């Protein structure tokens, strides 16, 4: 085993970790640049003043409170591009605990892409105020305090983007981890930042509460997970994924330590992907956080959970063909409960963010159902690969339409609305394009062709069907005897069908109020250009990734990355 200390930053490593390094530089830049200025330091005992870079009053350029946003956006853009470009490069070990390969780079691209959207959206969502000035002595008390509060707000800009980049770093590294402990630590890094981000939205009453709940439940779940990991450690003595996998494969029967370890880790990951019954804090958190952050939770954070599940369930404990994994039944049950719970709860939600949160829960259920098929031992190597492709593809396109939906809400939030269904009323009249995009996102979430949500759902259901449809008695001559003999896994597809139908109701309801109801005010929303561009990009990509060359490109990309995971 190679210890962490052996990590050496040579040029190869630097290149391998390019996205992370870019983000790190961004982080440093955000910390430093606002402090650059014309301050000078008087050499003690002399009158000589030496200009120093840090401190003092600011240049106009560095003074711009939107600077952190720009830096973060830039860093994310570069890192995103770098990640995408690195998907095709060969896999590189870094320091024994990280590996940069197609799989991890695809996911880091996903994470960073989501963060890029968040960052673009936050330009307007958490707006920096121009013309912040330090109070002078001439100011009245009121003016001074107002100036100070503006300065404080702008100061928070820096914090916000620092946290975003921290999330990015954590997630990105997490995708690369080849060691379970490293993986958990990175998750914690990302999670802790997201807790703060959720609570960051302090001007609302609910920000603190959302953060607190999310934090406390998340911590409890991750404590359980870490305890599970410690059980795994007790069992194997090594937390490198490969050795765990070897050990698991060699295991006679099922070792309770191993089984419980995996089971308890499911709790932590289950919380991340918001699987029932660990999802309960998620709707509260989503509805309390600012919309871009909710989007982040629903896409990147969820994807992070699924990467962890892949690593643990698929890398370590994947069963041989024809054998059932110990977690199969558990995961299948959780999957069905999750999707049903999510959809049912979303059905009557009156808060669009909450509704999207529940929808996010439901989507986790679909993906968990697909994963559980791997555990059933019916999938085989090819089937496993297909299912992983399907889930990964789904996670990738979720970034487009789930995030897109939250971005639309955040556009509404710039006007101080977006928390009630009524806020969406008449959006079709006020903002036809935005409403149209929202409609696309909803349809895509529901899985209506030809949008990308359909393709991903099709792939998942296909994974389930193709694994299980062959299990029925091939000499059955009537429907009932076939249905008697077919593996119950087949009915997961039915569960998805029923839930899709159920989910359509609230997705359409949301669309309906946009076009059907009369708007309360006919004014247009703020022209938050970067936010609008982000929404448009999401909408266009939602369509393009559904059918045609772009979707093919994405599917083959995902398939390459899955090859690097399982092959």
């Amino acid at each position, binding site marked *: 085993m190679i210890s962490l200390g052996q990590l050496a930053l040579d040029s190869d490593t630097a290149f391998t970790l390019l996205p992370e390094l870019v983000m790190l530089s961004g982080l440093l830049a955000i910390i430093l640049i606002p402090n650059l200025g014309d301050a000078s330091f008087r050499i003690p005992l002399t009158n000589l003043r030496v200009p120093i870079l840090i401190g003092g009053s600011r240049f106009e350029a560095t003074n711009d409170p939107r600077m952190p946003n720009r830096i973060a956006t830039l860093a994310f853009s570069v890192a995103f591009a770098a990640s995408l470009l690195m998907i095709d490069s060969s896999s590189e070990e870094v320091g024994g605990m990280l590996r940069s390969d197609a799989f991890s780079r695809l996911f880091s691209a996903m994470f960073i892409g989501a963060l890029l959207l968040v960052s673009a959206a936050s330009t307007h969502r958490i707006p920096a105020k121009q013309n912040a000035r330090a109070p002078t002595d001439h100011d009245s008390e009121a003016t001074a305090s107002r100036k100070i509060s503006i300065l404080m707000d702008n100061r928070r800009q820096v914090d916000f983007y620092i946290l975003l980049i921290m999330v990015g770093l954590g997630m990105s590294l997490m995708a690369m981890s080849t060691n379970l402990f490293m993986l958990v630590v990175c998750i914690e890094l990302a999670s802790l930042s997201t807790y703060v981000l959720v609570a960051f939205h302090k001007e609302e009453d609910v920000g603190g509460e959302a953060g607190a709940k999310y934090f406390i439940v998340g911590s409890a779940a991750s404590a359980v997970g870490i305890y599970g990991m410690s059980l795994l450690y007790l069992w194997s003595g090594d937390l490198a994924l490969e050795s765990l996998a070897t050990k698991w494969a060699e295991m006679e029967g*099922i070792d309770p330590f191993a089984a419980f370890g995996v*089971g308890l880790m*499911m709790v932590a990951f289950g919380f991340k992907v918001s699987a029932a*019954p660990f999802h*309960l804090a998620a709707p509260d958190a989503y509805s309390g956080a600012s919309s871009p952050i909710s989007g982040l939770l629903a896409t990147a954070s969820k994807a992070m959970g699924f990467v962890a599940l892949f690593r643990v369930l698929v890398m370590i404990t994947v069963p041989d063909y024809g054998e059932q994994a110990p977690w199969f039944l*558990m995961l299948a049950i959780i999957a069905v409960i999750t999707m049903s719970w999510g959809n*049912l*709860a979303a059905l009557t939600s009156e808060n669009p963010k909450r509704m999207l949160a529940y929808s996010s829960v439901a989507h986790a259920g679909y993906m968990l159902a697909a994963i559980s098929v791997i555990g059933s031992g019916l999938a085989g190597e090819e089937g496993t690969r297909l299912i992983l492709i399907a889930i990964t593809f789904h996670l990738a396109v979720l970034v487009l339409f789930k995030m897109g939906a939250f971005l639309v809400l955040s556009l509404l939030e710039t006007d101080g609305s977006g928390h009630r269904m009524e806020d969406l009323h008449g959006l079709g009249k006020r903002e036809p394009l935005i409403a149209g995009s929202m409609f696309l996102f909803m349809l895509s979430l529901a899985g209506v062709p030809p949008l990308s949500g359909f393709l991903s759902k099709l792939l998942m259901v296909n994974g389930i069907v193709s694994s299980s449809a062959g299990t029925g008695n091939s000499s059955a001559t009537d429907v009932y005897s076939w249905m008697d003999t077919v593996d119950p896994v087949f009915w997961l597809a039915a569960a998805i069908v029923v839930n899709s139908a159920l989910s359509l*109701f609230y997705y359409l309801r949301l669309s309906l109020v946009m076009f059907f109801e009369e708007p309360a005010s006919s004014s247009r929303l703020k022209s938050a250009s970067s936010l609008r561009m982000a929404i448009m990009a999401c909408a266009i990509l939602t369509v393009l990734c559904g059918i045609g060359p772009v979707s093919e490109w994405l599917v083959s990309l995902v398939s390459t990355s899955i090859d690097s995971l399982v092959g």
Partner: protein
Amino acid sequence: MGENKSETGLLVYIIPFLAIVPLMQNQGWESSDSAILIVAVPFVTFPVILVAGQLYNGHETWKDKLKEGGILALGALGTSLMAAVWLVYDYFDELPDFGDQHSIVQWLEWVSFDLLQSDYTLTSSKNILGVGVWVDSITLMLLFVATFLCFLICWFSLGYMNTDPINEDRNHRFYGEFVLFALGMFGMVLADNFLWLFIFWEIMGLCSYLLIGFYYWKESAAYAAKKAFLTTRVGDVFLMVGLFILYDIYGSLEFSVIFHDPSLHGTVDSTQLFWALLMMFIGAVGKSAQFPLHVWLPDAMEGPTPVSALIHAATMVNAGLYLVARMVPFVDVGHHGVPGLEDLGLIVAYVGGITAFMAAAIAFVQNDIKKVLAYSTMSQLAYIFTGLGSALWFYNNDEHHAAVVVFGASMFHLFNHAMAKGMLFMASGSVIHEVHHAHDHMHHGKDGEHGHDFDPQDMRNMGGLASKMPVTATAMMFGSMSIIGIPLIGGFWSKEGIIAETWLAALEHEPLMIGPAILVLLTAGMTGFYMSRMWFMTFAGEPKNEVVNHVHEETPWIKEPLIILTVITAFGGFAFALLGATDYLSSAYDYSGHLHLKKSTLLDSIIYKLEYAFLPENQNLRVIGWITILLSFIAGPIFAARVHGGELSAGESASPAVSWLVSLSGKFGSQDVTSLSESDLAEALENRLYFDDIYEGVLAKTVVPFAAFTAWFDRNVIDGVIKQIESNSVSGSLQVRALTTGSARDYILMTAVGMLSIIVLVWGIS
């Protein structure tokens, strides 16, 4: 309105139409080619009338010169008439020999298709449901009747319809639908197969519906239209099923294929064929308003009188008869017919007998002049059915001679009845029109009592019109005579034949035939009564309403058709009968050639005819014949005269043609029938023997509630399931949402519970 000046000058507008046929002839067309014109010209004309009428409604030229489309309609029907006459002229003498008779021309290959045979291969050639023209004596007769009457009645309508202010700006609808009807009738007569017969049959049904409902705002009219359509629809559906069976048996519906060998070398299952024919007969029953589907015809009199004349008396209702006449080859065992179908003949005869009697009985108590005629129509059609039933029975028992005679008689009665009844209706229309007009004239300017309590169709408002309306009275007299069967006048020849041969069948062959035989015999006398009653009530006696004094026969366009038809009725029937019309008409199925009814010379033929009618060799026939004459000629009319007859009021004199009858009617004394007319029987008759009430009651108690129930069922059970799912989902949603209590402690608890469940599950597995 210009009602006093002759408008015959307008006929100049139909000259272009009339030029079509000569032009075609000039171009070298055969009459068989131009047969298409009979259908095509009306087909092109009717939408033109309808659309133009809608567009130019109220326009001066349209109204005065084109008579709101009437002139166009007349032109189109004139073209059809000419083409038809040409066809009749060409084929009259040289009907194709039945053995290899085929459609003289093919019009359309409508649909063609393959069938899968029992060895899972397709039929080798395409089966085709097309249409062409079939010509035999029945076709020619009916074609002539139809085109001729259509033309005349259209002519009549120009006067009748266009002078009634209520029709103003609506007449284009009348004429358009009228022409469409004519097209249907012509097509049905010409069609060379059962399917197209049915298709045109339905077109007529539609027009009947449209025209009965011409006064659409009248509740009774709308109701009557619906009733007519639905009742005939019931029959039509059965007819359709009959056609399906027929198609299944023969693989074709074409006359030429089926008639060539209806038994398919003796392989046809007579039971199946019986059902097919029975189903078709039900269709005929509906269309010809026979018991038990007769209820629509009296109500159909809600339509304008020309419609009643044309559709519900002269032509459309004959369609059922025509269909039954086309069944003859199936049962004609002398020529490849299928034996064992006598029951069909019996059924037809019974239906005919019952209807004849029942309708005549109901006609006794009707006071509406058109209703009397309507029941008379039903009754006379029933005669023909009885005759056809006998004919079918005879054919099926290889009694060829009797069969041919009664078949010819039936067809001839059809001809006579059509002419006479068409005229009678027109005459009644003339009466109604003038009475109505007189009433309007009398009460002109008095808005309050404008016509609402006055029914111009009620014979109790008439009486003594013989002097006011000489032409009409004469026409009606001859028409009634023909219907009654006064010796030597048209209907006599045919009716006599029917009754005689039915009795022959009953007495010498089939005891069961006695039922229809007695019924038709009784009906003969009853016909004499109600037709006379109608005439006497209308034209004889003193005026029963002051309105009558203001009646004048003045409307243009009305007299000419009446006169023409009077001539035909009075002398045509006689002449045709003597010339051997029955033989000619029965020759449609007289292909074996072993009948030689035709005598060598005209004189021989006439003598034979007269002898056959009055002094047949068969003793039974002779007795029956004279009883019939006695009943219809003497008993019925005299009784009617006793009740309703009487001299005109002083100072009035009828025209010489009818004055003898008027004065005769007063010679039999009078009889008070008040007690009889207040009896339960009369009430039952007035209520049409309660058929309508029963049908309606049953439908209202079954169909309507059941429909309401299914609608309820659909909304609350089938859709209810969906709604239940929806509401369950919503309540489930609320419950599930309640689980998210908002307390982080509960969330952690649930996490712990989840964790424990996972442990338990994993433990269970391992």
